[in-house]
């Protein structure tokens, strides 16, 4: 019987073409949307982790309350000991020290008078220690626009838009003006080694990167930093693993009520990234639900139209002794075949397009120029293992549901009028 049904489906394009197109199109859209959202949100989360939040972050309790202001005066002290114990207690996590700070960057003229000046957000990383992996983590080689990466103390990188705005050129001497960890004025001179472009307009507008030892000297932060970041190894954030490490660390320091006592945060606890993670996890289900609903309605209608076209066939089958349940089940079997075929087709097309966008990306950096969030300028899809089967859920469910609803009419059919109906 199944072979008989398949033959009918293959030969009757009216019976199979529209549902197949609807299913394939819906499945393709489901995959494109889920990979697109997973890609964008995943990239945003990944970018935030690398630049600002880590997968885990250790700070002081006081710093936690004022984290938006990046206060260096509320930094962790004795960090060499703290990071040593972190590496011992949690060896699977890669721990690095960072100093995030703000200040003014001043470009002097030939008379050492201010030529131009602007506020910046600075990140100090362990740039010269190969084992830290910070240069690779921030992808510095790739985002370098001009000049070179700092190779010695006293050199820094300036974001290209910021450099352009202030008229800074490579090898220019610039002055950092800020305040030390103890609230005193800090003034230090540096050489611009290169310019960088993150492709994130909020950072490109005004940021610098320097080695952490230079920042420590400038900010008087001997054996101190305001953030210790932990990375769980993989590119993508593992919430369960991060929670486990955080719970263990915080339990150990629970009794210490000092405002400078260390506290650990997960990525999801910072920058509203928890919402983003929940959205990413929930969005696949939501998209599937929407497509199941929308496709079911379309396929219900398609099946109703198909039912009208096959009114005579169903009547004949009832007359020659096929049971209503058997006819109903055979229609469901047909829809299952269409659902599976359409889902395969839609998945193939959807994954192909997703793969292209994953590899090439879509550059929307021009549109993101005024964005203040840390978001990538080039948007990419992300194919995950779920992408291979996620389309089958709306594809098959919607087809079966649509046919099941339309097929109820078979049970309302009266055999008493079949002779008359089959005469027309």
């Amino acid at each position, binding site marked *: 019987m199944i072979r*008989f049904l398949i033959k009918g489906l293959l*030969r009757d394009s009216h019976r199979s073409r529209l549902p197949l197109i609807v299913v394939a199109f819906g499945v393709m859209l489901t995959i494109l949307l889920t990979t697109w959202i997973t890609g964008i949100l995943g990239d945003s989360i990944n970018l935030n982790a690398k630049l600002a939040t880590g997968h885990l972050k250790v700070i002081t309790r006081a710093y936690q309350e004022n984290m938006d202001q990046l206060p260096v005066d509320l930094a962790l002290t004795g960090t060499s000991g703290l990071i040593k114990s972190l590496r011992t207690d949690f060896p699977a996590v890669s721990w690095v020290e960072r100093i995030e700070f703000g200040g003014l960057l001043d470009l002097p003229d030939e008379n050492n008078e201010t030529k131009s000046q602007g506020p910046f957000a600075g990140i100090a990383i362990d740039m010269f220690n190969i084992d830290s992996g910070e240069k690779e983590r921030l992808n510095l080689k790739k985002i370098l626009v001009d000049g070179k990466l700092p190779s010695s103390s006293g050199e820094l990188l300036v974001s290209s838009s910021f450099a352009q705005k202030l008229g800074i050129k490579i090898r220019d001497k610039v002055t950092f003006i800020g305040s030390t960890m103890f609230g005193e004025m800090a003034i230090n001179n540096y050489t611009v080694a290169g310019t960088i472009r993150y492709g994130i307009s909020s950072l490109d507008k005004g940021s610098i990167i320097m080695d952490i030892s230079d920042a420590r000297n400038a900010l008087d932060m001997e054996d101190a930093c305001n953030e210790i970041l932990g990375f769980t190894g993989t590119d993508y954030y593992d919430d369960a693993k991060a929670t486990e490490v955080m719970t263990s660390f915080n339990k150990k320091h629970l009794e210490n009520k000092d405002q400078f006592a260390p506290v650990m945060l997960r990525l999801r606890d910072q920058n509203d990234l928890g919402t983003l993670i929940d959205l990413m996890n929930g969005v696949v289900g939501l998209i599937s639900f929407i497509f199941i609903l929308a496709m079911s309605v379309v396929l219900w209608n398609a099946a109703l139209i198909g039912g009208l076209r096959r009114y005579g066939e169903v009547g004949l089958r*009832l*007359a020659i002794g096929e049971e*209503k349940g058997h006819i109903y089940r055979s229609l469901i079997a047909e829809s299952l075949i269409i659902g599976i075929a359409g889902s395969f087709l839609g998945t193939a097309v959807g994954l192909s397009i997703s793969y292209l966008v994953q590899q090439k990306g879509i550059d929307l950096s021009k549109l993101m120029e005024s964005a203040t969030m840390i978001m990538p300028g080039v948007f990419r899809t992300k194919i995950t293992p779920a992408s291979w089967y996620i389309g089958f859920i709306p594809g098959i469910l919607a087809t079966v549901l649509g046919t099941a609803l339309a097929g109820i009419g078979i049970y309302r059919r009266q055999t*008493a009028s079949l002779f008359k109906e*089959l005469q027309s």
Partner: protein
Amino acid sequence: MENSEIISVRDLTKRFPMGLSEFTALRGISLEFSRGEFSGVVGPSGSGKTTLLNIIGLLDNPTDGDVIILGNPSKNLSVKEAAMIRRKHMGFIFQTYNLLPVYTVFENVEFPLLLLSMSTGERKKAVLEALAWVGLSDKEKSKPAQLSGGECQRVAIARAMVKRPEIVLADEPTANLDADNSHHILQTMEKLNKELHTTFIFATHDEKVISYLRRKITLVDGKVSHDDVLKP
């Protein structure tokens, strides 16, 4: 061979609701059909021919009275049991052929056998035999759209006969055919009736069909007015 009773219609009445009143289509009909009969129910439109065929075919239930098919009183049959009797023991021929357009002649004829759980080999043998009966062996791969009206009706006959049913019910089988084709398919059915001893019951007012009948039951206003044996 017309000796054993196969269908017994007993004091059959069928009423249909019509607004607040009722329309009586059949009024206390009693008939017996024996195995191998070639009979027809004739009468003008509205006389109750199709209603009688519906009830004999277990597609409808009587209001009063009963029909006993192959020893099974229709009153006692569930919908599933009625479907099973139709599936195994009855064939239907309709005025408009009702062939499935996307399937070949072979597949159309094979369709009733798919419901009987027969093996592929058994089905193929039965279908080829049925097509040979109606003279369409060379058309097994054709689609209904490639056939003439007469050929389509012959396919419908093969479909009705392929499972070798005891009873074939034919409602106006020649209504859409010209005289030549009508005679051709009637001769085919007459031959099958004689060879396979299948009971044929027609509902018709076509004189060409009536000329082939061996028994003519005339209905007028839901009652049997004449029950004549035309040919012994």
